């Protein structure tokens, strides 16, 4: 019940404050619409960069919102109360990540096909894109949560934190993009998706543990 109510609260907060899903989609479309200005409007070229654009934008949306994942709770004293509550802090982290993913990851996945079509991506690659994002975006939220938690307490950590966290994103991005590329070129996509799933499983274990430890430090 406790974990559930954290998810419920964070969803409510997200809906009230951050964005309706519609807003995220709007943001996604707006950002993606920038690329034709930059890269030039030729259809072929747009199609080739589409997987990259979609993944970069997803990463951006996650980063943009993760920063405040714990910060507000930290500053107003909520985090202390969560640490003291009977719900284990690991579950709290998981709950907050889940709520975060439902308000950013899910809308991103829903909007991705739209962008893909705007960028002239072949329709047969869309299922793979969606599947890859379904496996990849939770990882982004999970890993990001560690970074967000570390930045709260890490006065000493300083520059180290992003240095540690951002490289952890790279595998997800690489396999996410290459899964879609494989689909576009007709190569097998299974290995890429399996790797994405593997990364997800690992972060599902590591992130709550590391995140909770970092939060305990921050509460000092």
């Amino acid at each position, binding site marked *: 019940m406790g974990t559930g109510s954290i998810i419920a*609260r964070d969803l409510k*907060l997200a809906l009230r404050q951050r964005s309706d899903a519609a807003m995220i989609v709007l943001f996604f479309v707006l950002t993606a619409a920038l690329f034709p200005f930059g890269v030039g409007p030729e259809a072929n070229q747009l199609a080739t960069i589409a997987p990259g654009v979609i993944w970069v934008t997803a990463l951006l949306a996650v980063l943009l919102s993760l920063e405040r994942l714990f910060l507000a709770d930290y*500053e107003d*004293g909520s985090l*202390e*109360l*969560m640490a*003291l*509550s009977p719900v284990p802090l690991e579950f709290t982290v998981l709950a907050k990540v889940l709520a975060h993913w439902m308000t950013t990851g899910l809308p991103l996945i829903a909007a991705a096909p739209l962008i893909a079509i705007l960028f002239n991506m072949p329709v047969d690659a869309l299922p793979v894109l969606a599947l890859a994002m379904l496996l990849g975006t939770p990882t982004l939220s999970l890993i990001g949560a560690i970074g967000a938690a570390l930045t709260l307490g890490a006065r000493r950590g300083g520059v180290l934190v992003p240095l540690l966290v951002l490289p952890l994103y790279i595998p997800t991005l690489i396999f996410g993009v290459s899964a879609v590329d494989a689909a576009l070129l007709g190569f097998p996509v299974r290995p890429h998706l399996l790797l994405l799933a593997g990364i997800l499983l690992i972060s599902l274990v590591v992130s709550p543990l590391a995140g909770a430890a970092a939060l305990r430090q921050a509460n000092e």
Partner: protein
Amino acid sequence: MPAFEGQNLACTRAGRRIFAALEFTVPEGGALILLGANGSGKSSLLRMLAGLLAPAGGALHWDGKAVEDDPEAFQDNICYIGHGNAIKAVLTVHENLAFWSKLYPPTASEGLEELLDRALETFSLTSLRDVPGRQLSSGQSRRLALARLVTSPARIWLLDEPSVGLDDVSLKRLETAIAEQRAEGGIVIAATHTPLDIPDAGLLQLQNFAPPAFDPEMLENSW
């Protein structure tokens, strides 16, 4: 039988020693008021009692058992009201309180909704029920934080300057709530700078536990 006690507690923050050799005992139904100048360590002590801050030395006992043996079980006995009010600007008063009381499940002798209503009533927040947190005045925010006391099943209240910003009526209500908690055998430990009417409360002057000026062993023992 003494219910909650601390022995030989010491506190260090950012390398500075704040207090040392601090001792206290609060019996069931008892109360302790923490006094001392700014920076003497009242908030630090309260955070230590809540388990948010690890003691640099000493031990806590609850019901005769050492707290560090099972800190998580001990934390179920605690309701901590710190300087921060933990109020979300976009949630209404009712939603804010409901969230916290779901996270700290109350002993369900009455339904959750009734409990929330009673808590809001206790601190005269009923008329503000659907006002979002960002529209609260400072005293109203503090009252909302205090309303958590009513919904919490905890037996030990740790209050850090609970009366800050409260008007006279609300102060009275807080004192009543404290008295009721103690009548049921609960324990209240509060830091304050302004008078708080808690009958027969023990007083703990933090300044009495300022660490010794210099101890030759300190240098040798510094890691």
